[in-house]
């Protein structure tokens, strides 16, 4: 690791600031002796730790703690006798009397209530968590809820479920990509057990890489991002995999319209260690094999996902997790053309309880995304490969000095390697082996935050994140003039720093309780982004290209403020929120007309830079319990860019600018056996570029463009319905049938609109649209034993 003197001096200037922050909770009181209750909260049936379970003190209203992402909590109180109330939604409350005259360890197992209560439970946290938590702009999804929603082709998909929340929008028809609060699709940090997933989609974006069988928790931060997260401007989607059942062996799986799934988990040593392995593969290509046509038989079209995890309890104080994900898409035509792409991620985490008030997590994280194109024609055999690879070391501490404060601090260093494209010759070929330049960079961060419960009414999460990014050799770097022409080249030796950027990112989020049932929340966050995704196409491509910030590409910066009103009605049966935000973005990227970003070392010459602004209001009303539950989400928003060189340097609508966005979701428990669900979505069409005229050149009619994103796609709306039939539901064995109809009323939503010469009358031109997925029914069968 190389630190420049500048970096060191910045670090030193930060240290006193961090200490000031720490001092806040050392207003030590020399009163009665204090002791700490710490421990773990688990699901009794599976031994799986519970994230966000609460421990409250009956005698001290407003005092409590919540479990962290590893199920641990710590609560320090004056010596006395207390009654602890332990809650996790969907589980029975447990009450525990303690006589606190010394520090205590409590390992609590909660029992699921799902078998007693004949209703669908849609929330996952304490009933009024949404009002009380100081975290603004956050959505947490429950896997139980996701599993009941209607889906495309029988594939449950967390990324598509996330798109039903206000402020989060789909990239396009059936697409797993999403936009958050007016930011680009590459501005979302998608983490799977802490490892970034660079391309979270399969099959041109129609499915996400997350097999919902293996997933425990999904949290999205749309604003007020906590300081432990960074590296993307718009959002964090933090996905945690199940640890694996350490009580009993369990097999579950299913078969749907296009894919089959199998999940096996169980104890390696009961109570102490567990394994989980979960796989999914599409099987549509097996039908190709049955085809009489050689070409079809020798073609491939499939994807798979494999998740695996091992959890070990090494001692009272130490746990070790090893988790990995491998997924790949493969498309091939005979042995002539082929493209395959996929991610591999790995996380090794050591969770150590330094004391009953100080927890440590050390992670080593690996992530790799690559694609390979193979061409093998009669006179040309070669392969093109491209990859982005991360090695990431992260150390985090959590410290619980007293019930009013919970501190998190840590640091991480990520080494990024980008291989933009390499051609290797695999046989006879008239192509020369060649490679675009590899790029190496180091992204460092140090952060601290404190969750401070000031009093019954006010709570705050405040923190600071310092990031640095260095791009270094070996490689040639270019000097570019204002006309985007290369006027100089500098060669840097291996490890020689080309450019270093620093950013200080304050993060603040707070809640003020107006009364028992309502609160106001506000947040501010600055975020930075050092890796940028360049895409040459209007659809998601596996060949989209990640480029690091450099001497020519400045890191993106965003500042977001939000203000919200949160209120629960009828004893927390209804949840309501209204949240407004404004986001200012710097160093945003767009493309020149006719940009060639595919096979050039000098992509910078094809890019234009400017700023962006996004603002909006999100409205959310949710009914949480009862036979009928669900929500209505509505977002009114705008997202605009001002880029030097586009539209005469005027503000214009970003592609993802959608004025109105509505989602309505309903789940209804019809009977013991049947659960029905439905959702309806509506949004204003994306901003698109359409021609203003036409002309003839090279003996054909060519369209003439005057304005970027000056038009709109037609409004999008769609309704999906689903039904789940429980075939059997016992302790030992359960199975269900899931029926879905995607786009039930067959709306032809425009996937793309193009222009052409009229086929019958070539003297005219016409516009046409292509719609996908006009009413797609599906059925899948799931089992568990």
């Amino acid at each position, binding site marked *: 690791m190389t630190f420049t003197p500048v970096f060191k001096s910045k670090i030193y200037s930060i240290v006193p600031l961090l200490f000031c922050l720490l001092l806040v909770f050392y207003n030590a009181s020399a009163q009665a002796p204090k002791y700490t209750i710490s421990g773990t909260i688990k699901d009794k049936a599976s031994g799986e730790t519970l994230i966000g379970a609460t421990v409250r003190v009956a005698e001290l209203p407003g005092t409590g703690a919540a479990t962290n992402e590893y199920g641990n909590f710590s609560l320090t109180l004056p010596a006395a006798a207390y009654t602890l109330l332990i809650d996790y939604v969907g589980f029975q409350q447990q009450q525990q009397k303690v006589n606190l005259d010394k520090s205590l360890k409590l390992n609590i197992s909660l029992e699921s209530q799902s078998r007693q209560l004949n209703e669908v439970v849609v929330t996952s946290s304490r009933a009024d968590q949404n009002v009380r938590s100081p975290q603004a702009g956050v959505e947490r999804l429950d896997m139980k809820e996701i599993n009941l929603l209607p889906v495309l082709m029988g594939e449950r998909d967390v990324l598509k479920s996330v798109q039903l929340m206000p402020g989060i929008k789909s990239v396009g028809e059936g697409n797993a990509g999403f936009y958050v609060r007016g930011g680009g699709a590459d501005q979302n940090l998608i983490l799977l057990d802490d490892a970034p997933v660079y391309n979270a989609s399969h099959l041109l974006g129609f499915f996400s890489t997350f097999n919902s069988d293996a997933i425990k928790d999904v949290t999205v931060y749309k604003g007020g991002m906590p300081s432990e997260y960074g590296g993307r401007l718009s959002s964090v989607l933090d996905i945690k995999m199940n640890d694996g059942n350490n009580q009993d062996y369990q097999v579950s799986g299913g078969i749907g319209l296009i894919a089959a799934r199998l999940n096996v988990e169980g104890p390696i040593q009961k109570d102490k260690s567990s394994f989980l392995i979960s796989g999914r593969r599409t099987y549509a290509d097996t039908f190709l094999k049955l085809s009489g046509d050689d070409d079809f038989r020798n073609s491939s079209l499939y994807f798979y996902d494999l998740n695996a995890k091992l959890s070990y309890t090494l001692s009272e104080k130490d746990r070790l997790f090893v988790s990995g994900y491998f997924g790949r898409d493969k498309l091939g035509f005979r042995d002539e053309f082929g493209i395959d792409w996929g991610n591999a991620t790995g996380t090794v985490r050591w969770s150590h309880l330094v004391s009953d008030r100080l927890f440590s997590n050390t992670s080593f994280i690996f992530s790799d995304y690559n694609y390979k194109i193979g061409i093998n024609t009669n006179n040309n055999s070669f392969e093109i490969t491209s990859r982005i690879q991360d090695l990431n070391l992260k150390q985090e501490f959590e410290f619980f000095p007293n019930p009013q404060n919970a501190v998190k601090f840590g640091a991480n260093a990520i080494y990024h390697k980008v291989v933009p494209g390499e051609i290797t010759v695999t046989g006879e070929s008239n192509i*020369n082996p060649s490679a675009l330049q590899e790029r190496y960079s180091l992204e460092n961060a140090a952060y601290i935050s404190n969750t401070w419960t000031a009093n019954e009414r006010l709570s705050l999460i405040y923190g600071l994140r310092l990031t640095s990014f260095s791009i270094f050799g070996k490689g040639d770097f270019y000097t570019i003039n204002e006309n985007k022409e290369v006027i100089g080249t500098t060669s840097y030796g291996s490890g020689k720093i080309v450019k270093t950027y620093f950013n200080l990112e304050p993060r603040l989020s707070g809640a003020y309780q107006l009364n028992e049932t309502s609160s106001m929340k506000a947040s501010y966050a600055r975020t930075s982004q050092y890796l940028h995704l360049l895409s040459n*196409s209007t659809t998601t491509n596996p060949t989209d290209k990640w480029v690091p910030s450099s001497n020519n590409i400045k890191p993106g910066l965003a500042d977001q403020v939000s203000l919200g009103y949160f209120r629960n009605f009828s004893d927390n049966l209804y949840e309501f929120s209204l949240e407004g935000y404004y986001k200012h973005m710097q160093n945003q990227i767009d493309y020149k*007309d*006719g940009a060639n970003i595919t096979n050039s070392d000098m992509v910078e010459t094809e890019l234009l830079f400017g700023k962006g602004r996004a603002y909006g209001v999100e409205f959310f009303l949710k009914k949480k319990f009862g036979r009928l539950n669900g929500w209505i989400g509505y977002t009114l928003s705008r997202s605009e860019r001002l880029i030097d060189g586009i539209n005469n340097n005027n503000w214009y609508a970003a592609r993802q600018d959608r004025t109105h966005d509505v989602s309505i979701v309903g789940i209804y428990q019809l009977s013991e056996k049947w659960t029905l669900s439905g959702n309806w979505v509506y949004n204003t069409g994306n901003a698109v570029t359409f021609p*203003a005229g036409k*002309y003839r050149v090279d003996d*054909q009619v060519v*369209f003439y463009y005057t304005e970027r994103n000056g038009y709109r796609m037609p409004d999008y709306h769609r309704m999906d319905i689903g039904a789940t039939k429980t075939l059997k539901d016992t302790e030992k064995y359960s199975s269900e049938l899931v029926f879905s109809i995607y786009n039930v009323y067959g709306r032809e939503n*425009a996937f793309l609109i193009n222009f052409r010469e009229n086929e019958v009358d070539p003297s005219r031109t016409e516009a046409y649209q292509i*719609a996908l997925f006009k009413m797609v029914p599906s059925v899948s069968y799931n089992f568990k034993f």
Partner: protein
Amino acid sequence: MKLYQMRYLLLLLAAAVLTQLLSACERVIDVDLNAASARYVIEGNITNGDNPGQVKISRTKNFDENNVFEGVSNAVVTVSDNAGNTETLTQQSPGVYAISSLAGVPGRSYHLVVTIGDETFSAVSTMPEPVPFDSLYVEELTTFGEPMWIPYAQYNDPAGVPNFYRYELYINNQKVKSVYISSDQYTDGRLVRRSLPRFGDDEGDIKVGDHILVEMQSIDSAVYNYFYSLEQTIGQNAAAPGNPVSNITGGALGYFSAHTVQRKSTVVE
């Protein structure tokens, strides 16, 4: 074959399979497009061939008008080279200004100036040295059970210098409406067999007995960039659809190309 074309071919293949599976539907729609003020379109060529070249000038039209593009007749067009020769072009037919005396010589730079009213447009293009067009052949390739005839242009790319090529394909004297270009970014100094597949409706497919003519041109890098981006504009799949990158200054659409030409023809058998 250019690499990015391969990628798109594959993605198109995948998309085609998917769309077939999912019964995508296509329909003509009404889109209310704004009218734009007309711009001049200049298409200028000077070659070392029998036909030394011409400059065509027309205007853009609104989308809902017909596809008859009348020539612009009131232009003054001059082409000069860096050897001291200048010619003021005479109008052959409305909007078509022909070169008659100026010779296209490889290695020379040509300067086009077009004046229409009080507007002036200009462009510079250098005619590269020709690369011998060794042979033209047609081969049959079977994809998804459908045989397809593909013409190939074969030549030896000169090593150590950047080369850019453009090809025009004629089937039975009918020009195929596709942009065929290549650069030697990946094939410097190699024997190149450039495939020129004809995409589109089945009726126009190459059959046994068809007369195939290929014109191979050596073009300069600015003209290559124009056709590269023209292909994207025609494809309508770019992240940011826009006008091709023109080498003409002054605000006209189109290009000016000084290039060498070599023709070969064959009959499919």
